[in-house]
């Protein structure tokens, strides 16, 4: 027998047997990080009356750090199982007499509560911002806090909005004396134990004026879906603004009305406030394809938000996506510092104007 007749089949069989298990085993391994942490600032000066300017202060965290830590228990209300009035009763089981409804509050592990934060204006006047936990809301505009269900009037508790996910603990001016003005410079300074100091700088935008809305060639406060409309706004010395909209679907339990609704939506877009040649723009909402012939009217809010250069750079331009990995299921960043020196984050300012309209679909 020659080599080929005698050994080749055996060699093949041997190889197939040896390598019958073809897969390569892989294990999950924990990643350790060794990173010098820095402060992460989220500061917004809001020029709109009734809106709070705030500075949020955090730090970077290690990969193996918990993201949220237990902070405290928040007592919501007492449930009296033996209440005489029917509308004071709540959910009880068995022989319960009553109980306290509590909520476990978690806070970001990265939060810094013991820093010294100052915002100084052009005249050198400094305003100390104090840490305040559990700010209930940033904004109450257009949030109807009264619900009417099955004949019952219910006050919608907007603190529910402030869930664990959105519970934002901020430094704010608790004296009420800080009122940011348009076109002014503001300086931020932060010192926190065990971190390098951080500073920030911005120039506030000018308050925009959303003047009018017109459709079908005439001014209107009621617009029709599926038709373009125009908005006009004032010229400002500088700055850009974002145009957004929202259809207030409101009575969310009214199933038919909300599921039949479409129209009025468009992608937010930027306008140049200091373009003297053009201070109006046409909006082409997404087309609405609906079978229903029912006429529905909703509240409609148009908003024009001007911002300073820092806010524009951070939120509008965004970060170039120079790193991508399809298998990494969270966003990545190299750490942005916009208007901030010595740490990450952003120090920006906004000022807004609104138009409250009606929108009709037929």
């Amino acid at each position: 027998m020659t080599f080929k007749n005698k050994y080749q089949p055996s060699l093949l069989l041997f190889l197939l047997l040896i390598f019958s298990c073809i897969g390569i085993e892989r294990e999950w391994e924990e990643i350790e990080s060794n990173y010098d942490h820095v402060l992460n600032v989220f500061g917004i000066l809001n020029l709109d009356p009734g809106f709070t300017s705030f500075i949020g202060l955090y730090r970077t965290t290690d990969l193996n750090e918990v993201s949220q830590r237990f902070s405290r228990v928040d007592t919501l209300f007492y449930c009296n199982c033996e209440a005489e009035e029917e509308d004071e009763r709540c959910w009880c089981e068995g022989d319960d007499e009553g109980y306290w409804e509590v909520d476990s509050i978690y806070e970001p592990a990265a939060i810094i509560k013991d820093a010294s934060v100052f915002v100084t204006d052009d005249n050198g006047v400094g305003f100390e911002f104090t840490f305040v936990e559990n700010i209930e809301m940033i904004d109450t505009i257009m949030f109807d806090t009264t619900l009417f269900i099955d004949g019952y009037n219910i006050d919608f508790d907007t603190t529910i909005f402030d869930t664990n996910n959105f519970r934002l603990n901020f430094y704010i001016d608790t004296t009420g004396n800080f009122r940011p003005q348009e076109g002014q410079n503001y300086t931020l300074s932060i010192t926190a134990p065990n971190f390098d100091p951080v500073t920030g700088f911005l120039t506030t935008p000018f308050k925009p004026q959303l003047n009018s809305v017109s459709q079908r060639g005439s001014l209107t406060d009621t617009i029709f879906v599926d038709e373009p409309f125009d908005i006009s706004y004032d010229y400002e010395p500088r700055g850009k603004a974002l145009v957004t909209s929202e259809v207030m679907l409101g009575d969310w339990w009214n199933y038919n009305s909300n599921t039949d609704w479409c129209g009025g939506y468009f992608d937010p877009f930027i306008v140049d406030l200091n373009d003297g040649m053009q201070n109006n723009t046409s909006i082409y909402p997404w087309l609405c394809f609906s079978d229903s012939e029912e006429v529905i009217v909703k509240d409609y809010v148009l908003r024009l938000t001007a911002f300073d250069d820092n806010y524009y750079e951070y939120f509008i331009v965004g970060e170039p996506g120079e790193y991508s990995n399809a298998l990494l299921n969270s966003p990545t960043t190299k750490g942005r510092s916009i208007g901030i020196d010595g740490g990450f984050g952003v120090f920006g300012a906004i000022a807004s104007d609104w138009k409250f309209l009606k929108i009709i679909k037929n």
Partner: protein
Amino acid sequence: MFTRFLFLFSLSGLLFSQSINGFVREESSGEPISYANIFLENTSLGAATNRDGYFVISDIPLGSYTLNASMIGYGIFKKEITINDSGSIRLTIFLDQEVIETSEIIVTAERQKFERSIESSQISLDLREINSAPAFIEPDVFRTLQMLPGVQTSSDFSSALYVRGSTPDQNLIMLDGITVYNPYHLGGIFSTFNTDAIKEADFHAGGFPARYGGRMGAILNIINREGNVNRIKGMSNISLISSKLLLEGPMPIYKGMRGSWMISGRRTYFDRVIDALKIPIGKKADGSNEYFQFPYYFYDYQIKANLDINEDHRLTYTRFYGDDILNWSFDEKENYNDTDVNVSREFKFGIDWPWGNKTNGLTWRWIVSPTIISKTFVSNSYYRFNFNFSFDQEDIFTYSDSSATRVQNIDYSIFDKINDNTLETEIIWKANNMHEITGGFQLKNVGYDLGIDIEFETQDTLLNWVPLDLKNKTREVSLFLQDKLNYSDKVKLQIGLRATDYNLHDKIYFDPRIGMKYHYNSDIAFKINWGVYHQFLTTANNQDENLRLVELWLGIPEDKDASISQHLIGGTEYMSPQNIFYRLEVYKKTFDNLLTVKQENPNTFEESNSTDTTLNEFWDTKGNSWGIELLLKKSSGKLNGWLGYTFSEANYYNEPSGWHHPNFDRTHTLNLILNYDLTDDIQTNFGLTMSSGNPYTKILGRVYDWRQNLDSETYWYPVDSYIIGEKNTERYDKYFRIDVGMTRKKGKIFGFNYDTYWQIMNLTKHLNVLSYAYRTKTDPFTGNRVGVERRAVPMFPLIITFGIKFDF
């Protein structure tokens, strides 16, 4: 006076010397033999055949000589020649394949190239070398090239060539001189070239001469076989993925004109096998069985025909056509009743995605005189990539007294088309034994069409949106001139200049190229090459991608300069008496005016117009690379192969990333290819690759990144983001792979000869990391993030493949 002197000098040359020219071909098939050695015994006069098998020995004094022709693997040819004043002698020499022990020294192609080639970094691989390297399923010329020093790969899944810091789009890939824009199948896993049809692959890793232009990286010219001039022959090959057929033969002789032809084709068969198996996956609406259909296949075919009009004129036609097709569709019908209405719905969803190349070329070779050869070449290369997605739904509402139809059709397509029409002429003039002058021009018209088209249709509306519409027509007109100068017995020079006019720019681009070779002795030589290289097109692909399905080509726009690179290469070569070739080279390359496509910014609200997308927005990029390469190559004998080692570093710079190593950069690479003839009919091959891991960007920690909501409400919310470090400062674990294979030849069945072959890739099942997958560890009770884990995504596992090849 000077002119008369020149005339008398040349006339005297004519009177007292002549030339011998002709072709060297293989006896059995008539294929030209490159780098065969032709010399006159007891003289220093000799020449090597070029790629067409043509040679010329000029300035031969009158007299009688013994002409020798030899090539390793063939018998020696001898003929008595008498040179007189009757004119030059034209010969056609046929060499017979044989393996005979002889005491006479037979010169290998390697020796020929060593003695005559001035260009650095050049390798020619013949079919035997391409087929003998370990292969992934079937032999592939690109995967063989990846085993050479200076050539890297980004992963096992890609056959693309990263050469000395250059990305694949910087390489000029040609098939018989025609540019091929997307030389890959199956998303880059295979090259588009059928090795059965290849005669040789001529590869320049850098420092290439002035006759090549338009690219900055490397040149690969794949030469197809010409076809058997004596009889019709064929071969077929079935591997795990495709079946191939090749036919070749002589053309009928007509009025003294002879020729040959070759046709080869290849197609994957997996889809056909699945169709034939009829695997049921459910029922259609009409109750009939629905069978599983494999949605993908590729095919390619090549035709080459040569016609010798007479001994001086030859026409060659070349055609290549290759396509990948991904085609999948799904349709469904249903009927249901709602209140007062019956609804009949038909729903169709489909993906149709062909991409591929089509080339045609016609070459006219004219031997003007024994020392002047002219080649005129006209070609068309068309590449298109056309991804179509369609969704069609038709609802018919039938009421008691009426009916209504609702139609919703969406068609989305993204396409890239390139149409390249080229006319070029090259004239080679072997003026005398000192000068070989080559000159020519090239006119290249390229049309680019890159776009996105979206159509939305309802029963009463038709909307068409074109978010991207980039059309470009570019023209490159190039002239080149080079002189290969035998300055002395020891010193050879090659000086060339290429000038290109690019129609979108207002200037002429000059590419000087200089090379020098110094023979220290008959076995040792030193080389140095320097050149400037411009490129007028780029790709809109993400350079970070590990898996590249298609190339998206664009011409360099008006507002950007042509990309430019400079190569400086120095090296030493040693050809041992046992014909083992040693080469040590050092290179330095610089790149400028590169364009890196901007990746999509998911956060931006930047105002956009209908023609701007991130596909045509670029970061200006520059870079450099340098390295040391060592090559040992033994081309003959029972044991042959090569050992290559590379130490290299590549650096790129753009604004978002700063200076960084590109994804394909590997610092150390060691490749070993060995072929051993175990017996007359059993050949074994062995391949080893060890290299540094590819670079990647490390995750360092976490930070809150903020997103806004500005409509009726105002709030912001944090997004827990990973902080990444500087780009590509970490490296995956080392790469290691061993491949083995065996070919058993000379089987016979039903009168056909057959060979069987098998290959094992990654014999040791080493985990080579393609990328990492990440997952967040969360506390099951609180849902908090408590850490990050990663797991390697592997490249090739152990793979066993086999196939069979028939000759008839």
